[in-house]
């Protein structure tokens, strides 16, 4: 397993470099432009000068290598400097800068990370916590009323998009009932009970909307996987041993059923960091998803490239984690 992990990690480096280049190429090929959203009053010549000032007149490979240098050398050095408070070289290095804000992309990401992790991460956790019991019970009592209702809710939860459920929640809970704020306050600092409650209130709706969506998906996989395992011979063996039904279900069947579901869960973790574009937009959470979409709309290539690449690293990493988890959870599979 260790061997396998090391080999995979080594293989990861060229793969990620390749991915970063493909992303760069793609962003460069894409027909949107950083001056696209400027007002009509800015004349074409000025737009052209703006493009040149951003370096867009350079050939693509020059810009790519520049980004590589900034991202792989300058940014890590900068982080080391910040952590250890030491100075390496003259400290005057070009960092990856967003075109729209002219500020270092990494700083923007660090600023956004907390609210994304809180809201999207929490919704993912809540979604899993809801989905697994629902999946288990739905499968165990297949075609019971519980299963039917669970199926119905999860299908509706999955098929009605968040742009709709989000607005519906706002209309009901913010406009009519006035329970929750419709706009997320990213500057809120939790320091006492009151601010904690405020944080809970402003997180309630986005977390619920996203959790519903996540739970719908995961509970479907959970149910299918449980059904596959419930008919296996080893379940009969476990019953023949006189084990309690709960033990049979929650130890023997669940453990086997979780194998594919855990991989699904692990594979979706990077999406937590990717943020939830629509939900963040609807509730004005302004996390990484919103940052990414603004970057894409504004053709902010350095921002999008960096964000997407970090995303790619997470995906590759979590794929590895999923594979290792698979090996741990299913002893039949050995990577060597």
């Amino acid at each position, binding site marked *: 397993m260790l061997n396998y992990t090391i080999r995979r990690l080594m293989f990861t480096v060229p793969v990620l470099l390749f991915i970063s280049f493909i992303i760069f190429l793609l962003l460069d090929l894409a027909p949107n432009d950083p001056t696209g959203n400027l007002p009509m009053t800015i004349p074409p010549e000025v737009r052209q000068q703006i493009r040149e000032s951003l370096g867009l007149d350079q050939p693509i490979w020059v810009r790519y290598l520049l980004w590589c240098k900034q991202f792989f050398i300058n940014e890590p050095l900068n982080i080391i400097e910040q952590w250890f408070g030491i100075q390496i070289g003259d400290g005057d290095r070009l960092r990856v800068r967003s075109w729209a804000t002219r500020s270092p992309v990494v700083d923007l990401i660090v600023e956004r990370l907390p609210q994304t992790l809180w809201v999207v991460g929490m919704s993912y956790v809540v979604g899993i916590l809801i989905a697994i019991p629902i999946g288990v019970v739905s499968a165990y009592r297949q075609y019971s009323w519980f299963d039917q209702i669970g199926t119905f809710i999860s299908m509706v939860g999955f098929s009605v998009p968040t*742009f*709709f459920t989000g607005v519906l929640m706002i209309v009901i809970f913010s*406009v009519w009932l006035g329970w929750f704020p419709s706009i997320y306050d990213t500057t809120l600092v939790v320091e006492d009970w009151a601010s904690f409650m405020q944080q809970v209130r402003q997180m309630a709706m986005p977390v619920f909307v996203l959790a519903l969506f996540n739970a719908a998906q995961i509970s479907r*996989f959970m149910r*299918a996987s449980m059904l596959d395992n419930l*008919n296996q011979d080893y379940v009969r063996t476990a019953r023949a041993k006189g084990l309690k039904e709960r033990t049979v279900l929650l130890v023997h069947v669940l453990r086997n059923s979780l194998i594919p579901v855990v991989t*699904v869960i692990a594979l979706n973790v990077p999406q937590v960091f990717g943020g939830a574009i629509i939900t963040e937009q609807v509730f004005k959470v302004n996390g990484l998803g919103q940052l990414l979409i603004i970057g894409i709309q504004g053709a902010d290539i350095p921002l999008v490239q960096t964000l*997407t690449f970090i995303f790619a690293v997470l995906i*590759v990493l979590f794929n590895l984690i999923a594979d290792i988890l698979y090996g741990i959870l299913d002893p039949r599979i050995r990577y060597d």
Partner: protein
Amino acid sequence: MTDATVQDARQSRAGRSQWADVWDQFKTHRGALLGMGFFIFISLLVIFGPWLWDIPPNYIDIRAKNQGPSLAHPMGTDQLGRDTFAQVLAGGRVSLLVGVTAMALSLVLGTLVGVLAGYFKRLDGPLMRLTDLFLALPLLPLLLVIIMLFRDTLRAAFGPETGIFILIVFVIGITSWMQTARIVRGDVLSLKEQEFVLAARSIGTPSHRMILRHILPNVLSPIMVSATLGIANAIITESALSFLGLGFPSDFPTWGRLLFDSTNFMTLNPERVIWPGLAISLTVLSVNYIGDGLRDALDPRIRGR
């Protein structure tokens, strides 16, 4: 009678009755039958409905804007006075077609990659890295590039509507197969270690037969789940594409877009929101039940119970 003829006879009988068995089993699944019934109903409705309900979906009757349901407009009208019922019918054609074909495409791609990667050790690394690449690609710029590169060519070759249709199905298909591939691969990996596969391999079953006979039927349930989720996903993604100006022309209603457009009219004209939302949910639900029924019917452990 030689052994061979006996075997042949038995096989052909088994072959025929197997599908009959599947159908028999499927029939007994109430949800699946209902689901299939609804799916056929809604398919027929969107195919033939526009002939029976002859208000053109794009006909603007501005004096009748934002109306609630009435005899003339059973589902009300939108902000330009277009008949919502006619739009739901017309939109269903596109949405169902896009949903089913894009789902099928992504399923085929995902299953193919997943099975190949799981089954052939040598392909595992490259195929899974390819999957990583696709997972990592930023969707929006990818779409912009694809559309920039191919829209005009396809429009010239197939006309504006078919061209865009092909493009959208393709775009959704190639951007949504990755999860299926990952899950199928995982399942194949563990199946490969199971005795019946080892046994089948030890008697020299060729790979393609192994995959078709022994592997595929056993990874059916995750595939079925993916299919159900995939169809919903395709219908919604299509609406997101339209929203970004990348989908069908704006005078071309689809369920996803009807829902999106009506979201802001939620308090003003609630009827408008309900219908497309309901249409999508019920379709997805019915596909889910069909999937459930098929899975049960194809599972020999349950069949005949």
